């Protein structure tokens, strides 16, 4: 029997590629008559370019990268839509063992609490310019690291340096002393911990509870020409997410992802992020609630509130100037309508429209209906720490 739909998908070796991997390995794609071809990539730039020229129909993609494409910020034109999210959370901020010693001396708490560790970091950062790695300028990692630093009074440009490195190279860069810390998706925090090179200082879910991360990036022209194929794929990924989110599947999922052609890592390392039982790097294993959510809390719903929050950070850090028209382009990139239509036959609950979001560790909330106020408040706060921090 041949499949009705052939779909090529690029992915990076990260925990949240597991929805695509499970759709393939557990037969959810085949059940929708999809022949899914998964291609591991070495850079986000390759994901972007191969999607743009039609080598991939869909891809595991940094959410802000899809928005950058929508805003015309990519080097080659690449109309991309995001009809589904690929989970919530999943990142950590890992620091070198040396920096962790200094943070402890400056009063950092022993857990993963964002505010206390950030306060210690503010003291340490004053003693010398620290360098942090993120995976891409247009990434949730970049924005959450910057959000955390700023909220703790550390200006992410004036007080520290932020460089870009691909996920698999970050643990080595930390071990060699090239960087002092980094923000990355699992399992690349656990890899540094296992190598004895780092300590997890805080996590994405501690900075912003249930926060957005990757999306399924889809070439817009392909989506328009193949609506049935896309709907079938979204349903198969939804079922894959249900499977991924079931705790009893954790061991199997870790073994599946650990295979050579996926993450090529020991399953035990992958299981930390999957179960939220994080080995911090000081011998302790800390259970982190909601560390990574592949399915619960509407984790696959492409919320335009999330898109607009990412946009607010692109504006905040000077990647794009704010204009009402650009905010509308960002909203139009996320396609909850396609998600809703595709999942209708499954009769599963789908969230309602755009909503105010909170859960930030500093007590702030983001109301997408008051974007301008949010941008103004952040500009004032950033100017204050840049000058007096």
């Amino acid at each position, binding site marked *: 029997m041949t499949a009705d739909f052939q779909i090529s998908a690029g992915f990076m070796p990260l925990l949240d590629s597991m929805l695509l991997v499970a759709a393939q390995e557990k037969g959810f794609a085949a059940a929708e008559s999809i022949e899914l071809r998964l291609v591991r990539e*070495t*850079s986000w730039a*390759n994901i972007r370019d191969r999607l743009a*020229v039609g080598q991939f129909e869909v891809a595991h993609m940094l959410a802000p990268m899809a928005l950058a494409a929508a805003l015309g910020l990519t080097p*080659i034109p690449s109309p991309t839509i995001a009809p589904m999210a690929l989970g919530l959370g999943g990142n950590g901020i890992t620091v070198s063992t040396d920096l962790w010693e200094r943070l402890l001396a400056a009063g950092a708490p022993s857990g993963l609490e964002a505010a206390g560790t950030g306060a210690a970091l503010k003291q340490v950062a004053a003693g010398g310019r620290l360098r942090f790695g993120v995976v891409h300028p247009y990434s949730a990692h970049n924005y959450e690291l910057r959000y955390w630093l700023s909220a703790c009074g550390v200006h992410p440009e004036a007080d520290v340096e932020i460089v870009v490195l*691909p996920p698999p*190279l970050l643990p080595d860069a930390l071990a060699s002393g090239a960087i002092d810390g980094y923000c990355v998706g699992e399992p690349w925090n656990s890899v540094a911990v296992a190598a004895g090179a780092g300590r997890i200082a805080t996590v994405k879910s501690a900075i912003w509870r249930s926060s957005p991360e990757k999306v399924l990036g889809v070439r817009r022209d392909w989506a328009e020409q193949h609506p049935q194929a896309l709907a079938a794929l979204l349903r198969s990924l939804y079922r894959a997410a249900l499977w991924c989110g079931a705790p009893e599947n954790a061991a199997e999922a870790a073994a599946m992802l650990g295979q050579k052609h996926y993450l090529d890592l020991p399953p035990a390392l992958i299981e930390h992020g999957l179960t939220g039982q994080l080995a911090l790097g000081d011998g302790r294993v800390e259970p982190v609630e909601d560390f990574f959510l592949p399915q619960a809390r509407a984790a696959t719903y492409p919320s335009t509130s999330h898109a607009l929050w990412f946009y607010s950070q692109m504006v905040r850090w000077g990647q794009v100037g704010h204009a009402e028209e650009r905010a509308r382009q960002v909203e139009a990139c996320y396609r909850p309508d396609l998600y809703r239509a595709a999942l209708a036959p499954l009769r599963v609950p789908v969230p309602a429209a755009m909503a105010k979001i909170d859960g930030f560790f500093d007590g702030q909330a983001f109301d997408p209906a008051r974007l301008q106020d949010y941008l103004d408040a952040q500009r004032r706060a950033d100017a204050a720490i840049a000058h007096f921090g």
Partner: protein
Amino acid sequence: MPPSDISILVIDENRLRAAIIENGLREAGHRQVSVIHEVGEAARTIVSLAPDVVVIDLENPNRDRIEHFFSLSRSLRRPIAMFVDSSDAATIEAAVEAGVSAYVVDGLRKERVKPILDMAISRFNAFARLTRELEQARSELEDRKLIDRAKSILMRTRGLGEDEAYALLRRTAMNQNRRIAEIAQSLITASDLLEP
């Protein structure tokens, strides 16, 4: 300006392929060609050379880092964009297909850069073809070694002549719809297991 006035930087971890590209550029009359293999050197080299064109292979895991560096670099007088002209979709596709990407300073005219990119594309393709052929030759040699070993096992254990042994392997492969080398490998494995 003549071709020799364009400064080109080739970043490729594959030294052989980098040399092939460099040769092609020199043959085309380019005199300012630099090659680096380690991305660690890229930042410093880009600042000192201020290249007009950067050619990089797509396997390089550091593309994101390099793009970020371009976006930050104040030392580059003009911003660097990808490819010659983003409207030239066919060239972009051919480049990605071939596994190469290029960054070009803003304002450099398309007709000046396109030959460079076309050359890189054709040399990347030729290199890939060569690698494939080598790989194929290597695996054919491996296959032949396996088949020879399997034949000698059959000749020894079943008292067959060389041609008969081969015919048996071939018949078995056809019946099972597998390659002769696979049958040979199975036979060798089984024989190893059964050896006293």
